[in-house]
């Protein structure tokens, strides 16, 4: 017997599945964002000494 979409199990585990899904989506966004920042080599253009004083 296969699971139907409306099975009670789906409702019961909806919050957990949603949480895992959003976490994975956020992880993808982070990896993508970090890649962009690293590849573009942005260092804010501020020399270190300027900030030190």
């Amino acid at each position, binding site marked *: 017997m296969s699971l139907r979409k409306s*099975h009670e199990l789906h409702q019961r585990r909806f919050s957990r599945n949603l*949480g895992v899904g959003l976490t994975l989506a956020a992880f993808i966004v982070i990896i993508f964002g970090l890649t962009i*920042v690293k590849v573009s080599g942005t260092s804010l253009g501020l020399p270190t000494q300027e900030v030190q004083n």
Partner: protein
Amino acid sequence: MTDASINASTVSAQPCADEASFGDYFALLKPRVMSLVVFTALVGLLAAPVPVHPFVGFCAILFIAIGGGASGALNMWWDADIDRIMKRTRRRSIPSGKVDAGEALAIGLTLSGLSVIMLGLATNWLAGAFLAFTIFFYVVVYTMWLKRLTPQNIVIGGAAGAFPPVIGWVAATGSMTLEPWLMFALTFMWTPPHFWALALFMRSDYDDAGVPMLTVTHGRRATRWHILVYTGLLALLAVGTAFSGIGGPIYLTVAIVMNALFLRGAWQIARRTEDDSEADNFKAERAFFKLSLLYLFLHFGAILLEALIKPFGLGGWS
């Protein structure tokens, strides 16, 4: 959570009240402790004299927080037996039966590895190594080894909680100087009086669980004096930090006011007898505990403020 558990033929049609929600798994990461980790790591990162790209900074704080949360999950996995006994902890995800201990172990190990690798990739490997050491220290040295062995457990555990500002600083700079260690020392010295005050008014919990808290091994009178001594040492350190690279007039003002209040509270606790405390339901101890939360927040807040106004020619002593 195996494949068998989603086989329709074995699934109960009745809703299961004990089934873990996403929040129960998230609770394994000790969100309240995580908020302290996030704040102190953020101060370490922003107080460092090297600009960090905002997105990289965000990721650094996130992965430090996840690393801290992972160590919390591993702590809950190991301490599930005593968490069932203590009133304060018996509603946690594992003792309440919502999450299996094995699941907590898997989540803790996975997030530990992930956070260390991601922090290393996002910032630098020295920061990653510091995060790995912090997790190791909290889980193995504190939780597994010394927590149930010595009444100085809180002092040692405090070291693990004191690392986040150092990791934040190293994530920004890639190197080590005196200033992050002053922030480390501030949290390290703050932890014992903070927790011993809690142990005084949550009295039966640690006794019942057999954790060698100072209140159990050396007595409650000795604990009261320990709080005063540690608070005195903390005051010297906190005020002295005002004259370092992360200090300044704002921090000095905060330090003087808060340490005077903290010393006053510790002195009151030291002078009280058990009868005094019982009579007013540990009013002074509870007030001291609340003040300790504000104490740490304001000290780190002042360090942050000094750093934020530095680019405008303000802050610090120059």
